[in-house]
């Protein structure tokens, strides 16, 4: 696509047809969702799987990472799996219609990749017992509906270790989207990671109340840096925070995917989500008829979450601390949430030696000690 003549682009907004022809080439290169083509006569009918995304696959964030996962996993099965997707499906009443339509088209597997699809998935799954339903980040299951998510807080924890070592002001910043448990876990994990190497660290949080608003993310990042935060992490979907740090001469991390190219000086590492790891398993389960309703939560150990592209310029001891923690997460000697944990009002939320199970983690509604402010959803 680099070869696209410049004239086409400058005129892009002017002449629809000019850019149309240009985009035609691009379409051939990019793996467009496979049309419902007739299966080859000899081979067994392929497994048809459909994905629905809440954002455009061009959001460079959540939906983009999901779509990468879809492509990676599907590529491993050749023509045995045929996938398609519908993007920008609102998380409301529209989702149910889209899912039903995908089932009506003969898809035997439906992946709904955002929490807000839960209600629709539960309703449709009831009506189609022979279709496999897979829901990301939800909690309701049924005989033909299962849920999966990544332990992204492990990535945030590793980022926290780097941040704790590298901060000069002992103040970290976090640009947050919406106060759901996942985001709160990430804020807490980031802080706990930093405190594991530097007890003096505190974290400032700014909520933008959006998943996706690059200029606003920039402004929030700027505001945090203006108030002394020198290392930022975000739970929003664009590269804006990282880029803002680059311009201000501060540090930050990539989120969702490897964002190192966006900020060579500011980028300390990227917390990545590899959905493909799970999608590969899901396809295999369906093909081998070993699919059963489960709850899958995979982290660094299974390769679904990772902390990659650690900056070259980091001191050796920082790199080693991250490697050690990563190893520890893999072999179980390190866990992000372990008692005693005290919230930022001084209340003990997890006693010493008490287990932090998935239920506990699922209901996180507090900031750990060291995070400033009050959880917006708290009573």
């Amino acid at each position, binding site marked *: 696509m680099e070869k696209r003549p410049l004239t086409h682009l400058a005129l892009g907004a002017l002449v*629809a*047809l000019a850019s*149309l*022809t240009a*985009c*035609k080439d691009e*379409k*051939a290169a990019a793996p*467009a*969702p*496979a*049309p*419902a083509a007739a299966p080859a006569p000899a081979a067994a009918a392929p497994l048809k799987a*459909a994905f629905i995304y809440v954002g*455009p696959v*061009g959001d460079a964030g959540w939906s983009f990472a999901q779509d990468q996962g879809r492509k990676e996993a599907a590529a491993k099965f050749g023509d045995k799996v045929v996938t*398609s*997707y*519908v*993007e*920008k*499906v*609102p*998380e*409301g*009443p*529209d989702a*149910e*219609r*889209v899912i*039903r*339509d*995908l089932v009506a*088209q003969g898809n035997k597997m439906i992946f709904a990749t955002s*929490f*807000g699809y839960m*209600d629709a998935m539960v309703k449709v799954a009831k009506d189609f017992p022979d279709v496999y339903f897979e829901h990301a980040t939800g*909690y309701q299951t049924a005989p033909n509906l299962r849920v999966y998510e990544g332990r992204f807080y492990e990535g945030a924890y590793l980022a926290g270790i780097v941040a704790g070592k590298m901060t000069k002001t002992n103040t970290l910043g976090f640009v947050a989207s*919406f*106060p*759901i*448990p996942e985001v*709160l876990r990430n804020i807490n994990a980031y802080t706990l990671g930093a405190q594991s190497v530097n007890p003096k660290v505190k974290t400032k949080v700014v909520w933008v*109340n959006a998943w996706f608003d690059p200029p606003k993310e920039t402004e929030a990042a700027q505001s945090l840096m203006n108030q002394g935060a020198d290392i930022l992490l975000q739970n929003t979907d664009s590269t804006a925070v990282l880029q803002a740090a680059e311009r201000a001469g501060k540090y930050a991390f990539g989120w969702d995917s490897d964002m190192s190219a966006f900020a060579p000086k500011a980028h300390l590492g990227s917390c990545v989500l590899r959905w493909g790891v799970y999608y590969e398993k899901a396809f295999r389960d369906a093909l081998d008829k070993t699919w059963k309703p489960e709850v899958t939560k995979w982290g660094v150990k299974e390769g679904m979450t990772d902390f990659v592209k650690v900056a070259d310029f980091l001191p050796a001891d920082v790199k080693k601390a991250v490697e050690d923690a990563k190893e520890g997460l893999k072999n179980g000697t390190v866990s992000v949430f372990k008692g005693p944990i005290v919230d930022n009002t001084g209340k003990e939320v997890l006693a010493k030696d008490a287990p932090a199970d998935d239920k506990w983690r*699922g*209901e*996180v*509604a507090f900031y750990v000690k060291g995070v400033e402010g009050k959880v*917006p*959803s*708290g*009573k």
Partner: protein
Amino acid sequence: MTLRLEPRTVPSPWMGILSPVIALVVTVLAGGTLFFALGKDPGSVLSVFLLEPFHGVRALTELGLKATPLILCSVGLALCFRSNIWNIGAEGQFLVGAITGGGLALWVTAARVPLSPWAFFPLVVLAGAAGGAAWAAIVAFLRDRFHANEILVSLMLVYIANLLLNWLVFGPWKDPKGFNFPQTMSFSAATALPRVFPGLRLHWGVAVALLAAFAMWLFVFRTYRGMQLQVGGPAPAAARYAGFSSRAALWTALLISGALAGIAGAFEVAGPMGQLTPYVSNGYGFTAIIVAFVGRLHPLGCVLGSVLLSMILIGGELAQSRVGLPSAVSGVFQGVLLLALLGCDTLTLYRPRWSSSR
């Protein structure tokens, strides 16, 4: 030789029918070229957009479900625009209606009030109407008392309504068993809107929407007050002469349109959703503005316009999964259709003429 337009003394009834047809032809040609250039079969893509949404009982009921909030919002907006009141915040009124309607359903659920769905139905209509009308009343009040421009106030109130909804579902109204996710508990069966056909999602709210359109038609074209209202907007002096103040026009139009948008919001919550989440609206309040004009500010036109818009919105989804058309292309196609419709509408009011000079 240049093409000139001459105003017609009376709108052409023929062109009134013909212009949407011309617009459709223009869109089909432009869209077909676009799809062809993208390497898709134009025929099959167009049939997905234009025919598939009408194919079968389920598709038709889904179309009705999608059109219901659009009809309610656009009919009210048409009244505002006819009265020269530029309420572009129907989205906010919709959201507040969803909050009040959802709040009522939540209360009925939590307090286990013994109700049947048919008994709840009028209550949720009232709750939604009250919420939407109250939100619109802020606009009317600030305009009436402080002359604050209604375009700006109604638009800003959309953002505020959205954040209010967010605060409620992330905070005080959050389902205690919902793992801290932004949603209320699921409403009890007593609060579900009665369905038209068993097993299909279309609910009787659609009848309310059609009734509202009919009532609006009666009001606007068959009552003295409706006529006064339209005079009241553009020409306050004439209206005063007719015994009707522009203040009354302002309040009437805003309260009615706010109430209708609020009902639409309450229906979404009590109908297809069954709980309150941050994702109640899919921009219905804004889409309804286009619908109102595509429908030429006529209640019946609004019904047709709502069906048309629902068709291309659903068609856009179908085109993604059936023929692999990216949603961005659907957006382009939808934009072309709307621009063509609006452009061709000119033919009802103006006569094209070739002339030799300016």
